């Protein structure tokens, strides 16, 4: 959720500077995914996770928590509005998925552009301003966390009815999407039409337009699971869904209605207000939570004192009583996530800060078993490595197979039924790169899971120029006797090993063979080649052939031939033959400077 520093500060006047606030969020509340400086404001992009979505997807929720963390004042701004006149508005709640429905008629309103402060607040959250009424619903939703909807009163026929849809019923949403409904979906209807998909999206029938004069404001609380299921089924996800699906406190309905009404009255001076109709079928119980701070200390590995806990509870304005280490608190309505002692252990440590935890190694004084599958994989891998096979890993996804995944982001929708297909592709790729790899033969293997109709199995497969062999891990390990794992310490902790990325451009490989007197050693030739090969040489010259014609044999002159393979490649372009020819010419020239050396 995008959060404006300015808006937030209206509730917490002593808020630290934005760059300090980032750390407070990060280490005590939630992750900050982005910070953007604007003219006279800073916008934080906060990643609010599902366990806190019911209170932290709102300015006031965040403000209250920050005030608690920092032990500074939370300014609870409340709007006073005049009493409403008597109303004839009729509300019928027929669905059990509606936990509270509050509605109010306001007459003689005017649809106008929003005042600047509202436009700016919305703009700071990347929200487009639409008109004073729609903007007000959004402002209150972001501020309090409760979504709000408005109907055009003059388009409503009779009572407002909150009910489940009938099989095959249809409605058109505000954005002109036709939706077919089933009894799973909850709707807001009048006596003739469906007016809205409850908690998800408004409908076309009672849409507020420029000509709207009289309105019904809806502030409600719906069952999170029902909203979520409908939203998934019809594939509409809105800011309202995001809040309702995470479960909201029905207690914030009345304050949200009050704020919304106040905003409308402020913007439309001639408006007349009627009293609210409030159907509150499932009153939220006051949640009492007991915890013991000795047990919490034991869970955290940190001694938490009675005084520390009392201090935290006071900072958050939480009502509590305690006998020594046993506490009982009354949980604030919006904190639906606080249910157990474990929840309180998190609450206490994240407020105190996780840096308070020490680093301690536990004593393990029990015996651990060896795992057969892992030991076999380890054994198989080492056996193949010792036989000069190198290990590769290929994708588990293929374009054919027996087990298919749904809605994949990729075009490869099947799980592999064997390792060989991927391994053969890998073999081809590596064969092309043999000069680059400095290998005279490609031998590779993979150990991994394959998936068939009757289940998954771990396979071992290896490929060389003669064979493609694939067997099950158990088959491969027939001769494995449960030897202990080889000690890895020699290979471990190579901290300085640095990965070298490779070029995506093609390489050019050339061979240089030189006749030298047999007193000359290969490294002397190597040196001349290496020194004159330039920066495009991507691997060490590789001696792939050498032989000596003894002086005694017929035609023999006692000279030795050394043949080196040179591989050239650029990191930023495709090399031209001519470039490489020039390099080879230079090397040849340098070699020919030794009168007894001769290019073959």
């Amino acid at each position: 959720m995008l959060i404006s520093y300015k808006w937030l500060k209206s509730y917490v006047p002593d808020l630290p500077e934005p760059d300090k606030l980032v750390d407070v969020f990060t280490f005590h509340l939630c992750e900050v995914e982005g910070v953007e400086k604007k003219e006279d404001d800073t916008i934080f992009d906060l990643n609010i996770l599902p366990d806190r979505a019911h209170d932290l997807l709102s300015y006031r929720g965040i403000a209250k928590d920050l005030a608690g963390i920092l032990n500074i004042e939370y300014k609870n701004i409340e709007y006073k509005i005049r009493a409403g006149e008597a109303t004839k508005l009729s509300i019928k709640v027929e669905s059990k998925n509606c936990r509270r429905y509050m509605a109010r008629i306001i007459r003689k309103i005017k649809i106008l552009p929003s005042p600047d402060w509202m436009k700016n607040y919305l703009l700071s959250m990347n929200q487009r301003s639409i008109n004073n009424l729609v903007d007000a619903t959004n402002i209150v939703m972001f501020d309090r966390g409760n979504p709000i909807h408005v109907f055009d009163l003059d388009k409503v026929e009779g009572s407002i009815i909150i009910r489940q849809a009938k099989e095959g019923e249809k409605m058109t949403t505000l954005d002109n999407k036709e939706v077919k409904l089933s009894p799973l979906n909850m709707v807001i209807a009048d006596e003739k039409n469906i007016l809205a998909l409850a908690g998800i999206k408004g409908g076309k029938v009672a849409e507020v337009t420029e000509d709207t004069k009289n309105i019904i404001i809806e502030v409600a609380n719906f069952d999170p699971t029902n909203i979520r299921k409908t939203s998934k089924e019809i594939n509409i996800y809105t800011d309202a869904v995001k809040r309702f699906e995470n479960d909201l406190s029905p207690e914030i309905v009345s304050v949200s209605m009050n704020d919304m009404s106040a905003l409308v009255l402020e913007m439309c001076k001639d408006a007349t207000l009627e009293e609210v109709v409030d159907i509150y079928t499932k009153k939220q119980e006051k949640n009492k939570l007991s915890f013991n701070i000795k047990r919490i200390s034991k869970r955290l590995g940190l001694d938490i004192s009675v005084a520390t806990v009392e201090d935290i509870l006071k900072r958050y304005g939480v009502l509590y009583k305690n006998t020594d280490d046993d506490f009982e608190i009354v949980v604030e309505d919006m904190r639906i996530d606080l249910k157990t002692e474990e929840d309180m252990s998190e609450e206490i440590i994240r407020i105190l800060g996780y840096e308070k935890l020490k680093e301690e190694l536990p004593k393990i004084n029990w015996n651990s078993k060896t795992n057969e599958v892992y030991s076999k994989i380890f054994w198989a891998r080492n056996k193949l490595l010792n036989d000069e096979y190198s290990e590769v890993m290929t994708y588990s996804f293929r374009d054919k197979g027996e087990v298919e995944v749904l809605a994949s982001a990729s075009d490869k929708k099947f799980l592999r039924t064997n390792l060989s297909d991927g391994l053969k592709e890998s073999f081809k790729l590596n064969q092309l790169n043999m000069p680059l790899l400095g290998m005279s033969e490609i031998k590779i293997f993979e150990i991994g899971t394959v998936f068939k109709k009757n289940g998954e199995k771990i396979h071992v497969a290896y490929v060389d120029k003669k064979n493609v062999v694939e067997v099950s891990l158990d088959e491969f390990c027939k001769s494995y006797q449960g030897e202990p794992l080889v000690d890895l310490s020699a290979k471990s902790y190579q901290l300085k090993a640095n990965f070298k990325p490779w070029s995506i451009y093609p390489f050019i490989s050339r061979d240089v063979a030189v006749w030298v007197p047999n007193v000359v050693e290969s490294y002397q030739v190597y040196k001349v080649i290496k020194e004159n090969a330039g920066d495009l040489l991507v691997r060490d010259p590789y001696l792939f052939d050498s032989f000596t014609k003894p002086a005694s044999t017929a035609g023999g002159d006692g000279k030795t031939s050394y043949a080196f393979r040179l591989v050239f490649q650029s990191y930023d372009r495709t090399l031209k033959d001519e470039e490489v020819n020039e390099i080879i010419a230079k090397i040849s020239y340098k070699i020919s400077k030794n009168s007894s050396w001769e290019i073959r």
Partner: protein
Amino acid sequence: MNQETKKGKEHPLSVVINEAVKIFTDLGFEVATGPELEDIWHNFDALNIPKDHPARDMQDTFYIKGEKDKVLRTHTSNVQIRYMENLVKSGGKPPFAIIAPGKCFRNEATDATHEMQFYQIEGLMIGEDINMSHLKGVLSYFYKKMLGKDVDLRFRPSFFPFTEPSIEFDLKFNGKWLEIGGAGMVHPNVLKNCGIDSDKYQGFAFGPGLERLMVIKYGMPDIRPAYQGDLRFNQF
């Protein structure tokens, strides 16, 4: 020409996995394994991730066509459940400590830091008094062994349905803080779901990704070559 060519070259992820397993087994952990194609109970329900709850959206899951009850595991946490269920079934009880490296899957677009398949290393330690400071101690010990003595570890608040408290942890490596993975104290519901007395036993779990560790350890710019079967990747 030299000794190295006499032996095949191991995949860098295997190098990392083997080192990790060595460090943890030296501490007393035992290795555990589990299936990659998993049922909903072991991947979600038993881990306190309820059906029709937004927490399920935290992971982009691969569901299987024609098999309503199956998913590609989204994490190695399924191994926690399988290990504890088997332990209880065979009459065992805590304390225990397991480490489970394994392949996981997420249905998301591929880029330099995300792949549809990836490795996690799951750790789980349960006893009568295994606490959150132990979690910090074990993670710190592991990463210092893996990356060098001067790495620093820090915790940040987070949320996972299967841990309470839940944290994300970062490492300071070469002067920079890097996000590494998630961890926490095992939620009592998870223990109960496996038949373990959650009033008597408590402990921690963690499940960082191994590609991330490999990339940091070796200074790799991109994780994608890991699964392309390209031997140029086997540099160590």
